Every structure is written in C-alpha cells, then in structure tokens.
C-alpha cells in the first residue's frame, strides 16, 4: 500500500542489499571487462584496487609523505574554513536583513544577483583576485555558499511569527535578547539544514578548483591519476569523498538533533 510502513529489520536488510547489489554489479562489470582485456585499467578488479589503495596510503618515495593524508588534510582544511567563513558571513548578513529593513533594502538586491552566478564560473575571478593559495579556496567556497545560506537565514527570520517577538517584549526582553534568544534559536535548525545541503555544492566548487590549479588535494590527485588512467586510485578516492560527505551530513544531522531537539518533534 502507499506509504505503508515496513518493519525496521526489513528496512535495514533492504538497505544492505542495495549496497551489496551495487558492489556486485561493479565487480561483475570489472570481471567481464578483464575477460575481454586482461590489462584493463578502466574498471579495476580487486587486485588492482588493492594496489591502488596501497599506492595512495604508503609513504611516497619522492615526497616522503602519504598521498591520502596530505590530500585529505589539504581538502578538509579548505572545505572547513570555507564553510566556516561562509556560514558566519551568511548568518550575520541574513540576520541583519531579516531583522532590519534598512539592511534588507540595501543587501538583498546584490545578494539575489550574486546567488545566480555559478561559483565555478567565477573561478577565474577568484584566481585573479586571490591567487591560488588556501585563501583562494576559502574565499571561493565562502562566497559560493554565502548567498544561498544568507537567503535561508533571511527567510527563516521572516518566518518567526510576530506574536513570539511581541510576547518576548511583554516578558521584558531587550532587542538583543529578542534577536539572540528568540529569533536566532528558531533560525539555527534551518541554518543547519541548509548547511547540510550546501556541503555538496561546496565540494563541487572545491574539487573543480583543485582540478584546475591545485598542487595537492583530492581534486588534484584525481585529475593526475585519471590522466595516467590509474582508475584504481581514482575509485578509492571517490569512495573516500562519498564517506566524507556522508560523515558531514550525519554529523550535522546529529548536531541539529543535539542543539535543537524541539525541531524534529515539530515536523511530526
């Protein structure tokens, strides 16, 4: 029946089954490809993958470091700092716009315009203005996610019913307390939701930029290894990216449940 719930064990079993099917399909394709061409590198089989993983994790002879470690550190640092600046900026701008009509009139038009330019298309501008160091990546991610996040915050502030604000004043709140203790509290879960959705685009901007100008990082490594058709390194990197994105999503969801336990209950 439509929307009929199923037992929890069933749901878990089906979830595991789907992953198993996905992995088996991959190895089936790989197997067939290797029957045609035993030296195939496009769909590496288990032995090739193991070799690739080894290459990525062992101490590299030339650079004296492990690829996966330096890449992960570089990429994660860029992503976190970029998101941090983007989120803080968006929060400040969004709250100002939502709470004060002057800021709304002044900031909304440029933000609405900037939000429409794809940040990957803006890459050239960032390269020119900020060079190709970490700052460039941070600026790019921050500016990439800021318009959407700021609009989320702005709309969330607008969503807070006037009654609650008035009520707070009748309970003796100051303006600052209304902003912090009434409005921000209701904006926070929506902001966390929006960050969850923006992690994806942020990673797109970052990987794209790393592919173009990076000298370390996931995007850089994937590009280099792909050029050498070392798909046995590329696939594990993709799996790592998936795991990383999944972890971020899971963590933010947990954070939301911990900081705003009321929010999940409201949806029901």
């Amino acid at each position, binding site marked *: 029946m439509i929307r009929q719930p199923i037992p929890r064990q069933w749901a878990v079993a089906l979830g595991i089954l789907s992953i198993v099917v996905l992995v088996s399909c991959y190895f089936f394709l790989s197997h067939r490809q290797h029957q045609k061409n035993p030296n195939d590198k496009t769909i590496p089989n288990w032995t090739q993958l193991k070799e690739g993983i080894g290459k990525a994790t062992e101490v590299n002879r030339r650079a004296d470091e492990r690829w996966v470690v330096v890449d992960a550190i570089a990429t994660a640092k860029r992503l976190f700092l970029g998101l941090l600046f983007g989120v803080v900026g968006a929060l400040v701008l969004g709250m100002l716009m939502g709470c004060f009509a002057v800021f709304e009139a002044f900031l909304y038009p440029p933000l609405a315009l900037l939000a429409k330019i794809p940040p990957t298309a803006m890459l050239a501008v960032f390269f020119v203005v900020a060079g190709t160091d970490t700052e460039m990546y941070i600026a790019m991610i921050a500016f990439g996610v800021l318009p959407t996040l700021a609009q989320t915050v702005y709309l969330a502030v607008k969503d807070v019913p006037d009654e609650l604000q008035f009520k707070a004043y*009748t309970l*003796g709140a100051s303006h600052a*307390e209304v902003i912090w203790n*009434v409005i921000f509290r209701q904006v926070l879960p929506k902001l966390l939701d929006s960050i969850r959705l923006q992690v994806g685009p942020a990673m797109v901007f970052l990987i794209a930029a790393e592919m173009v100008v990076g000298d370390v990082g996931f995007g850089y490594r994937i590009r280099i290894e792909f050029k050498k058709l070392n798909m046995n390194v590329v696939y594990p990197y993709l799996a790592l990216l998936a795991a990383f994105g999944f972890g971020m999503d899971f963590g933010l969801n947990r954070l939301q449940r911990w900081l705003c336990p009321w929010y999940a209950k409201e949806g029901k």
Partner: protein
Amino acid sequence: MTQDWSSTFRASLTGSEQTTCSRVLRGGIVALVGPSGCGKSTLLRAIVGTHPAKAGKIVVFSGKTREHGREVRQPGRDRGIVYQKYSLFPFLTAQQNVAFGLMLDESSLPYRFCRPLAWRSLHRRHLDQAAVFLDKVGLASAANLYPAEMSGGMQQRVAIAQALIMRPEILLLDEPFGALDEAMREELQRMLLTLYLENSQALKKGEKPPYTIFIVTHELNEAIFVGDRVVGLSQYWNWQEEGAATCPGATIVYDQKAPVFLPDDERDYGQFAHQRERIREVVFNPENHRRRNEFRTFWKEVHQDETQRANP
C-alpha cells in the same frame, strides 16, 4: 484608518482605559466582544503596545495611591499577552517557557555570557519557580514536553502560566480558546474562574487582588460566563443622529456587569440567556441605531453597589 475613526476610537479607548486602571476593576475579568471588523484586535494591540493608538492613550497604573501611571508606547512587562496562535516559544519545554520571562527579567545577555556559573544557579531557581506555576495550571507532569508535543489546551494553559509568572498589571487574552474543542475550552474557562476566585479571596483579606484579566472573545457565552464585566465594541450605533455622514468608527455600545461564577458552578448558558440576547441585539445587530451610552451602565451599577454597601 480615517481621522474620524481615530477620534471616536479615543472615546472608546478612554472607556477601556478605565477598565485597566481603576481601583474597582483591579482584579476583574473584562470580556470584550464585538462583530468582526469592529476593532477588538486593534484595541488589544494598542493595549499591548505593538501597534500604538493613533489618538488617545492607554495608561497603566500599578495601584499605588496618587500615581500618574505609565503611558503605553511599546510592549512592556507590565502587560502580559496570550495569543490564540504562536502562544509559546517552540524551542523551549513547558517549564523553560514559563521560566523564560524570569530569565529575561532578572538577567541580561552579558550576565549570562560572562557569569555562566552564577547564571546557572539563578536559572535553576527560575525553573523551580516555573514548576510551581505549572502546577497551578495543572500541568506539573508536562514540564519537559515541547509545545509541539502538547495539545492546544495544554499549550494555552502553559501560555497563561508564562504570562502570569511575570505578575503583570493586566493579562490580555486574544481569543485564547478559539481553536480549542468545547470540553477543553470549558476546562480553561474554569481555570480563569479559579484565578478570579483567588482575586475575591485576596480582596476579602484586604490584599491587592493578583490578577486583572482582559479577554477578547467572539463567543458571547464565554464572555458572560468568564467575565464579571462585558464590554461590547461595535460599529452599529446612532452616528446619524450625531451628525456624521458615514460611520465614523466603532465605539463602546455596551458595558455592563456579568454574573460571577465559581470554578465548580454548573455552566448553564440558559441562566444568562437574557443578557446574551441583549448583547446580540445591541452589539451585533447592524440594524441597531440606539444611543451609544444607553447600555453603558457599568459604572452606574458599581456606584449603586457601593451605596448599597454603605447604607444597607
């Protein structure tokens, strides 16, 4: 809103101003009724202070002798409000909601940030106080529920406790039970009567009655059952006779005492059928063109009572 409307509104505002500040009416429950569009909500918003009156003024007195009173220009903690919707902060549990006002009143943002330890012990005290008030409205067991987990009736009860903990000079209720089913509505009406009973007991002991309540409702039975005074605001009155070409606005056309009930009295609407029909006729009938002060006899009734008490 036209200028004319505002000037008539001043008259009505002045009328209800007395309800909030008068010595007699401290401790009363005033019910405001009226047809839709008569400005009930406008009047209430003016008293809350969120949308100040364009003419006339609202003055709140705290009951000290020879007091000038504070003129209402913005919302303040001397006036509590319970709205029909959005009456609670969704991100706080029932107990935290009730304690919220104490937090805002007795601590400041810098204090809470800079002295977290002192704030924590203060907060614990606030929560204890809130628990007492929750118990008073019969919701001690729901202390840790979020508004989304409570029924509409529970939410309104918590909202009333939240407003009362501030000990406001006046508690304003804006159609507070409008969205509730009949059984829940009756329960909450009886809760208001319990507060009224506490008022009467305080008066008997010669103390200042703790609760003054102003309730806006569209339900006439509720107005008469809960209120000890019913005020009717209406745009249907004899403005033609006063020389106006078009209706200059709504004004108070009805202001009389209502019977007083005890919390466990039977709620029999038949008892006050006469008064209900009278209000319907005077306040809600568009064909009504009586003089506007024909049924504004509340103060006369009060004075009569006082003389009777003086010379039995």
